[in-house]
């Protein structure tokens, strides 16, 4: 069912990570991602893994949830892993006299790749699990603000993002309703060949688009009638604040990042 799709879902609990300024978390993630790719050698990998685990623990989101988020990438990990096993040049692995075709270098490379991918997903999930979509877009807006002097419409971009996120569940619900209504009129969405199935989608897509446009129009009118005029001079109900915890996190991040870089290049 469409309803089961989870999209970087927010996990509404309380944790130190939830309380942080979204800007700290976004920048932290950026540094984290760089660190994951820069990390080198056993100590480097151990450092990024340990740090990711620390973040996961601090978020207080159950491990199970993180594992669920990994589901879509298992295939990629296994697929690239198998390719790496066999295609990396190096010392061949023998079982007795029989050549397996795999290389030691290949196995190591596959392990590194898998670890990187998993850490990448887990640390990105840590951001979306602990930050509500609204504060996430708020954070992005604030981060982009310096660029608005160069003509980048920071507020508008952030507003578009939050509206888009807001309407995902609404549109999913609408799709289900329309598909049921057309099924009640004998529409058949799941039999026949590919062309027939694509054609069967027309009775669903047309009303869906019409309703999306109608909603957009209504929303625009509602916003304008409440005097929405873009970001200039707008104040916020909950302004985001850079607190002590953010400062501490930032310092820890800088030290961690420095260590990873140092391990790599010195």
């Amino acid at each position: 069912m469409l309803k089961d799709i989870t999209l970087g879902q927010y996990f509404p609990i309380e944790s130190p990570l939830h309380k942080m300024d979204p800007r700290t978390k976004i920048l932290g993630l950026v540094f984290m991602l760089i660190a994951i790719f820069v990390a080198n050698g056993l100590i480097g990998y151990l450092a990024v893994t340990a740090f990711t685990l620390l973040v996961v623990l601090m978020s207080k989101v159950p491990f199970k949830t993180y594992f669920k988020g990994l589901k879509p990438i298992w295939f990629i990990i296994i697929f690239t892993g198998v390719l790496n096993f066999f295609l990396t040049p190096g010392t061949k692995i023998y079982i007795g006299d029989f050549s397996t075709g795999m290389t030691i270098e290949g196995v190591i490379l596959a392990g590194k790749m898998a670890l990187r991918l998993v850490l990448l997903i887990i640390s990105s999930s840590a951001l979306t699990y602990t930050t509500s979509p609204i504060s996430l877009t708020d954070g992005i807006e604030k981060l982009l603000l310096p660029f608005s002097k160069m003509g980048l419409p920071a507020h508008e971009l952030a507003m578009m993002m939050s509206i888009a996120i807001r309407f995902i569940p609404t549109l999913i619900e609408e799709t289900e309703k329309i598909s049921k209504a057309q099924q009640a009129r004998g529409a058949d969405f799941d039999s026949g060949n590919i062309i027939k199935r694509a054609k069967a989608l027309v009775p669903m897509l047309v009303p869906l688009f019409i309703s999306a446009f109608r909603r957009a129009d209504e929303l625009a009118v509602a916003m304008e009638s409440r005097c929405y005029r873009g970001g200039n001079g707008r104040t916020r109900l909950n302004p985001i604040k850079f607190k002590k915890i953010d400062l501490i996190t930032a310092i820890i991040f800088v030290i961690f990042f420095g260590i990873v870089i140092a391990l790599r290049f010195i």
Partner: protein
Amino acid sequence: MGIKIRNLEYIYMQGSPFEKKALSDINLDIADGEFVGLIGHTGSGKSTLIQHLNGLLVPQIGEIEVNGISTKEKGAELKELRQEVGLVFQYPEHQIFEETVYKDVAFGPKNMGLSENEIHERVVEALTYVGLDDSYYEMSPFELSGGQRRRVAIAGVLAMRPKTLILDEPAAGLDPAGREEILTQIRALYLKSKMTVILVSHSMEDVARIANRIIVMNDGKIAMDGKVSEIFSRGDELKNMGLDVPQVSALATELIKRGVKLDSNIYTIERAKAAIMLLAKEKRGAEEC
């Protein structure tokens, strides 16, 4: 044959923290040719129940038999069932997609694989039922008014010639004139076609006027089931469920309480008028003597 529901239960998002029981232990029989009003507060399970009647939802627990087709059986003829039970959703005009009124109404019959002639006959019949003549056939549905568009959508279901017609809040969001028109047409259609009609609504006024039997749902259960007059005589219970008796009924009950001799099963304005006129006549007669 009618509709037979036994021990039906339905739970939304079973096994997740958002689990919600939408229906519990529903037992219901609806005979052919009945006009049933299904009322209940938002979230009482009305919509979930009607989606079971044409196989859009399959019972998790319990059984449903509609005109001899049991929806629980694997490989049940759901497509056929959906022809026999026409379901008009809330705001059905949102499902219109074709360029012309005619083509949109023809969508259902076309899915049934009928011949061109048969389709034409049914489309004309259905559009006539809802009071749209041939000047509308080639119009785009989006040129029409809200009420007209809704009637096109209802015609789209009628064109499948269902034996049972279910309408979910057919008058929602229409102005009083549009409401009146739709409800009158539904009643006329019922009298003419001898279909079984199930009308879902939260408006007591609408249901009281046109249905013969009322089923009240509350919290996923059937709370009351009976004739219109029986249901409205239990005004206090209805109020506890967040429902209201029609205003005229409330007025009549109040008048009776204050000693006016009125009939206790007044629930339409026409009846109230007749009863009060009768009373006034009697009174004048008594004064003249």
